[in-house]
């Protein structure tokens, strides 16, 4: 039962094939057996989960038939969970127990879901390989010598390895889509503003967006429906009706216009990845879609613009970690300046420090216009590129990443790591939704097809992804179990 989709598990619960407690217990046993090596969880909340599972079983016995009730999931350790450590992958918050729940956590719990625990991630979501975590790297369940992607690497690995049927992720520059691609699962980054950011620890506030990671587009549709919506506590969440995403899944694709951005198929694209994507496109053609080439002319500016805007916001967002009120505090500070310096020197890892420094620099007097203001101008151009493309086509398709998962420790140079996100980053700058679906393999390592849509076209993206999954079985593949040695 550990490789079933949420939809299948819901049927199993309904049919009485197993209970929530049995399902949950089984997953904890698997975590116990297999996660030592994968390292996808930072914190496991067994007692709370079993209590919630019993309550769900009791409710089901009394007729609770909500689609997500009694189903477990894992939560990226960036979402605040009341009374449970919320570390954000950082030593800085190793001792931090949030006194409140993130809106997303609240909503999923209200839908009856059961949290198994908190998943590993790049520190403060800054990374593309999950190697910057204070809690150690996560291994790719398909190939233990590979990274799982990042920053939602723990969530992706847990779902791929059959430790959790679904997980919450966040995506600031590709952090849901790229690990979903690398681990062979389905991951959706919603439109900016579709899902509340309240209680989601901020990396870059104008780019961050939470979303579901699961084994099928159908599961993502259920999860998005439960977590989306306006939140009075997040001014940037959008007041807009949440459609019935599940109802849209079966719309036929005949006449769908697919655009292939030529900039996403250029130099640096791995040939195995490219052929998997081309094969996926042919599947869409067989489903009645038409395909044409489009251009997103400012694509080459996306990574530079992102690495101005995201660090600028991060440098400010991470100022609150000062050792005064919560989190890590250095021992015996001599004075205020010493408290700040040592607390932050000890509490943050190298990548976080690098980005705080970049952001502090780009916002500084004399540099602001050249960096931050220019990057915002570029951001508008990139957004316009997408809007222009969507005048011609319904969705855009391409690879989620230029290569399959790379080896652990392979990318020592930060810039080569940043370039990993070349196909995902522009999407966050534009605020549009994107989904990655499994589309084959490059050797042992999965390849993800990225589908992009107009603002608030999650329903269409899920429909397009679901129809692909009806015609293929890449999303049903799973890696072999491997005992912790």
């Amino acid at each position, binding site marked *: 039962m550990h490789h079933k989709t949420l939809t299948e598990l819901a049927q199993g619960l309904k049919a009485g094939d197993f209970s929530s407690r049995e399902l949950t217990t089984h997953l904890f046993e698997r975590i116990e057996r297999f996660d030592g090596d994968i390292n996808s969880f930072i914190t496991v909340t067994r007692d709370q989960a079993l209590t919630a599972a019993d309550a769900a079983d009791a409710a089901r016995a009394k007729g609770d038939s909500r689609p997500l009730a009694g189903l477990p999931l894992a939560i990226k350790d960036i979402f605040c969970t009341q009374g449970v450590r919320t570390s954000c992958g950082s030593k800085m918050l190793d001792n*931090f127990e949030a006194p409140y729940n993130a809106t997303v956590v609240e909503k999923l719990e209200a839908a009856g879901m059961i949290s198994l625990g908190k998943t590993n991630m790049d520190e403060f979501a800054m990374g593309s390989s999950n190697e910057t975590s204070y809690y150690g790297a996560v291994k790719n369940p398909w190939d233990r010598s590979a990274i799982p992607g990042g920053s939602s690497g723990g969530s992706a690995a847990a779902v791929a390895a059959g430790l959790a049927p679904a997980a919450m992720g966040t995506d600031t520059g590709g952090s849901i889509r790229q690990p979903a691609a690398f681990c062979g699962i389905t991951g959706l980054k919603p439109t900016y503003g579709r899902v509340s950011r309240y209680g*989601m620890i901020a990396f870059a*506030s104008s780019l961050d967006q939470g979303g579901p990671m699961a084994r099928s587009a159908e599961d993502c549709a259920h999860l998005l429906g439960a977590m989306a919506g306006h939140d009075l506590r997040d001014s940037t969440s959008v007041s807009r009706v949440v459609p019935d995403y599940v109802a849209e899944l079966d719309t036929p694709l005949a006449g769908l216009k697919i655009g292939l951005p030529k900039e996403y198929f250029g130099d640096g694209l791995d040939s195995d990845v490219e052929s998997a994507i081309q094969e996926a496109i042919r599947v869409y053609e067989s489903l009645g879609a038409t395909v044409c080439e489009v251009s997103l002319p400012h694509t080459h500016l996306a990574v530079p613009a992102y690495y101005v805007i995201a660090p600028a916001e991060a440098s400010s967002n991470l*100022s609150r970690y000062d050792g*005064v009120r919560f989190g890590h505090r250095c021992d015996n500070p001599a004075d205020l300046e010493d408290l*700040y310096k040592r607390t932050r020197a000890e509490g943050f890892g190298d990548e976080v420090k690098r980005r705080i420094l970049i952001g502090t620099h780009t916002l*500084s007097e004399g540099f*602001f216009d050249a960096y931050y203001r220019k990057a915002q101008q570029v951001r508008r151009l990139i957004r316009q590129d997408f809007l222009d493309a969507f005048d011609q086509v319904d969705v855009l398709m391409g690879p989620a990443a230029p290569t399959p998962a790379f080896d652990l420790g392979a990318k020592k140079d930060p810039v080569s790591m940043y370039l990993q996100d070349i196909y995902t980053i522009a999407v966050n700058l534009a605020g549009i939704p994107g989904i990655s679906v499994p589309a084959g393999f490059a050797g042992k390592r999965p390849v993800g097809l990225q589908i992009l849509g107009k603002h608030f076209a999650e329903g269409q993206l899920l429909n397009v992804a679901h129809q692909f999954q009806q015609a293929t079985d890449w999303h049903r593949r799973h890696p072999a179990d491997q005992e912790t040695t």
Partner: protein
Amino acid sequence: MQWETVIGLEVHVQLATQSKIFSGASTAFGAEPNTQACAVDLGLPGVLPVLNEGAVAMAVQFGLAIDAEIPETSLFERKNYFYPDLPKGYQTSQMAQPIIGKGEVELVLDETERKTVRIHHAHLEEDAGKSLHEDFHGMSGIDLNRAGTPLLEIVSEPDMRSAREAVAYIRAIHAIVTYLGISDGNMAEGSMRCDVNVSVRPKGQEAFGTRAEIKNVNSFRFVERAIEFEVERQIELIEDGGKVVQETRLYDPDLDETRSMRTKEEANDYRYFPCPDLLPIMLDSAYIEHQRTTLPELPTEKRNRFESDLGLSAYDAGVLSATRPTAEYFEAVLAVCGDAKQAANWVQGELSAHLNRENIDIKNSPVTPEQLGGLISRVLDDTINGKAAKQVFAALWNNDGQSADEIIDAQGLKQVTDTGAIEAMIDQVIADNPVQVAQYREADEAKRGKMIGFFVGQVMKASRGTANPQQVNGVLKQKLDEA
């Protein structure tokens, strides 16, 4: 050399919203430390600000009151710096696009001299918490109750030329915000705090001198003294061959001096950038016009109307319009008695003397404006004379009766205007005081004028103060002059 002082002011006004500018926590003053700080105020990981619309409405009302430009779009930005009582490591404020643009405030310097001070802009921001340095044995305590309290920072142009003008400006701002009801204006509790920019230049020179900024001056008197000290310091410095450096200074009221906090070189680079957690504030003309309908009559308008329509002197109009409660009290008295001059005299005279003596705010006056108006009416219709009126006022003050009429009846203070009764009393007084009558009749006109007071006094005494003094005077004169 003749020196000219140039002063610009930044006034931070605490807005009177019930909850904070970006959270639902209470803004009430004086609670136990850290009991009015929620997750948002503490800057916990993951929290987000939500703008309090009440603060926006108040800022717009202020903008309308100073006839300012109110842009359609304004933006919150983050001002980044580290300080223990600044929980997020940045203050959410406004910089490039403030909510209120250029405006102006009219100052009344004395009965004839007025001056217009230009407002550069006013912007919304959140207050920080407080660092407490006492009682922690060498450590510091942090109280975040104040963190997130909404402030409107009003920035003037450097238009003031003396400490007196600066004080008049702060008084004018104080009057406007308290009239609008957007702040309690309580300077002792920090509801209004000023940063004062001061420079000096040789008279006639156009270029400004180098300025010093004096931070956090918290009373009208301290503003005056801080400026006076600073002006003298700068002039002496320059005359001794020195140079003023651009710096931030602190006014110490105990020592009555300013001293350097930090120079320009040590100043923070605040790295302002638009706050990505808050949407721009968009104000359409319908919203602004709606806010306009909520505006009360403002201090200057009131003052002008008191002078021109009610015929009060410039001085009276100024005093009675100085604060909204005083103006409202006066107008309520006027509404009952209908005589502006009498109402003005009573409010500034008897009432004000009593209030001052017992240090009571006019809002809590034991004599209501309706009661005072009733009392004045009885003076105006000659029911009681001036002396009795003071007795009635004292009785009202002491709550010895519900209304002037009740007290007049109970104490028999109704003025005697019956000519027969008054004549009888006068005849008696004349009969009882033959010596004085004889002296009077021998005296010349000038002396008689002084001597008649004795007889009036006797008659008033006989009437227990109720006789109409004018009437008594007339009849007495007639009778004494008869022989």
